[in-house]
């Protein structure tokens, strides 16, 4: 996938939708009726400032997504959440809802595009699900099941990405990174540490850690960090935990990702949220987004 194009599109999307929302249709309609849009024909209410995906999730409607996590400012990079709003492709995680908008999501056309995106993600990395500890708790795998991806379709890249096992408690298996930047956002915005960053451009984009040696052990990373618990795939893994939860009893074995309230990092593998009571966890730098109502815990 060409990451340059992806990033460029996403920032344009945010700017445009915000501007339009402020002008007229954001939040409450002129006649004081609650504002709504339609999503695949279903009426979805929303409050001022909500993005399409937030409003949809609040209404219990699933829109596939990978780089979006309600706890963080949207990144708009994976494009899985793409919908057609008033006939135009846009990322629903960055596009603000507007009154009267007509949105399509679960259509053959869009799902075909999503499937191609997933296939590209699979062939770009080395996703060997059978022996991956994240299997069954992995959002990439679960989304691929959801969208009905039956084969990789494209030729595998088989990149050579050695592991970073230097840290005593955590392993980085870069083979599986989908560059969603959630760990980057968590480390920067919640942990205040900037342990992770995406480096390189386009097909050369990759995850790096903030240490001269390039090794996780030499950063300030700790298992207590938020960044240790946000990876939607199996890159950032607690060491020496392998298959303690049997295959078949994992989050997405119980129910598909579309029925899981917030398909963030699977609850089963996570310690209780360290920040306590807030239903959506801490949200720095997310002033424009209201708390997400459907998320119970992560």
């Amino acid at each position, binding site marked *: 996938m060409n990451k340059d194009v992806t990033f460029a599109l996403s920032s344009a999307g945010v700017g445009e939708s915000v501007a339009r929302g402020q002008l007229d249709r954001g939040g409450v309609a002129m006649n004081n009726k609650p504002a709504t849009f339609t999503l695949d024909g279903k009426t979805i209410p929303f409050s001022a400032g909500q993005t399409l995906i937030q409003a949809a999730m609040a209404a219990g409607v699933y829109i596939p997504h990978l780089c979006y996590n309600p706890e963080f400012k949207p990144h708009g990079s994976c494009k899985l959440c793409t919908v057609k709003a008033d006939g135009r492709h846009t990322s629903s995680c960055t596009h603000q809802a507007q009154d009267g908008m007509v949105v399509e999501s679960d259509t053959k056309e869009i799902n075909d595009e999503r499937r191609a995106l997933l296939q590209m993600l699979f062939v770009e990395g080395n996703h060997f699900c059978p022996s991956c500890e994240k299997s069954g708790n992995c959002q990439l795998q679960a989304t691929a099941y959801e969208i009905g991806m039956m084969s990789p379709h494209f030729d595998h890249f088989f990149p050579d990405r050695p592991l970073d096992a230097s840290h005593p408690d955590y392993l980085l298996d870069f083979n599986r990174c989908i560059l969603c930047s959630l760990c980057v956002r968590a480390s920067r915005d919640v942990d205040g540490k900037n342990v992770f960053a995406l480096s390189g451009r386009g097909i050369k984009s990759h995850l790096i850690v903030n240490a001269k040696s390039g090794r996780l052990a030499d950063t300030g990373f700790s298992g207590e960090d938020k960044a240790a618990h946000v990876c939607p795939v199996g890159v950032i893994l607690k060491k020496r935990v*392998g298959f303690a939860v049997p295959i078949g009893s994992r989050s997405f074995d119980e129910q598909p990702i579309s029925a899981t309230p917030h398909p963030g990092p699977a609850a089963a593998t996570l310690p209780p949220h360290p920040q306590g009571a807030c239903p959506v966890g801490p949200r720095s730098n997310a002033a424009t987004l209201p708390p997400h109502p459907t998320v119970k815990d992560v």
Partner: protein
Amino acid sequence: MSLSLETAANPENLRRVAIDPVSRVEGHGKVTILLDEKNRVHQVRLHIVEFRGFEKFIQGRPYWEVPVMVQRLCGICPVSHHLAASKALDAIVGAKQLTPTAEKMRRLMHYGQILQSHALHFFHLCSPDLLFGFDSEISKRNIVGIAEKYPETARRGILLRKFGQEVIRHTAGKRIHGTGAVPGGVNKSLSIAERDELLKDIYQMVAWSREAVHMVKELHHKNPELYNSFGAFRANYMSMVGFDGSLDLYHGRLRARDQNGDILFDGVDYRNYTQLIEEEVKNWSYMKFPYLKSLGKEKGWYRVGPMSRVQNCDFISTPLAEIERREFMAYSGVMPMHAPLGYHWTRMIEMLHAAEMIKDLLHDDDITGSELMASGERGFEGVGVIEAPRGTLIHHYRVDENDLITMCNLIVSTTHNNQAMNEAVRRVATQYLHGHEITEGLLNHIEVAVRAFDPCLSCATHALGKMPLEVEVLNEAGERLSILSRSGDGLFSAS
């Protein structure tokens, strides 16, 4: 124990016949035979033409992934690799002694695997040869033919296998490629409901397994000339034996005997296997040739698997299987049984033992216990050995301080039997093919000999008697003179 017929003196003047692939075995292997103009056999080789490179592939991976990853070596006995790896890695997490629940769950999983694998091999892959004859009508010589002529036998075969798979599902989480065993223990025990579900059928399984032993026994008694001599050759044999000398497929020490049944070594801690076994590489096969160091390359090769185990142990701990073992030993007399078809008989004795063990374990309260994991001082090297359905399976790993695998050595059952299978094929070629016009029926004799060892040549499991088979007869210039072929639907044609 000669190595004659391994390499012909003047191969360039000989005709080459290839059985490629050998059917109704797991994976891909081929047999090549060099014949002269009078159809005299000059060279016979069983080649393993697959190369999977798992040992290399696993390096640099975190150790806790390994028990799940190595299962992909094989679609037929993944549980064996899963358990051997877990046993090896117990040493890495310092679990010197597993909890009773963990050890019994692993054993239950293993016996489920033995049951399903032995049932599959005997009923699906071999009963067509044994019940119809080695050169019987080719279109019937498969499990479909068995289902028509002996519907009850076929039904039992299917249900025995299914039961074994259910045991695996309840212990490993899935029928194939489960995750039940983890370094240091297991991740689940049986629920009461799971136990009761298995208990419902186990008595039937024991009874059917017993009748299966009787069925093979009768075949031997009815046609002793064939069964005692087909492909027979004398060999050393090795297996793991329980600490008390019993047949123990999960844990114990290594014991080997020579061709007369005399002990070569006994009570050897399997972690020292490298002191006993060496592997030779030959340029015509991807499969190595292991041998006992003490006896050297020429004389040190040995057999593993059911026929080795049943004759190597002092007794079997479960009563019905022990009766059968004694009968088998009485039948073979003072000298050990060496005829490859004896594998079928002993395989069924083991299936009966596995069924009895499953029954006992299901009655053991530990199997529903909650103490699943043990740990201790961190180790950096581990060896795990298990008696897999096909024989002794050795997994050996080294792990660095960052938890990544730095070395992996695997010796799988079929590799131990490499020389023995080659030997059996040479015997059969000499006994049946030498000086005769080659026919499909004659070539199937070769395959029958290979199949007796139940070789698992890789991870494939698509066989069931319908694997395409092609035999080419070439002249010395390498030009094709004739071709016999069997298509994917089992039909045979010559041109």
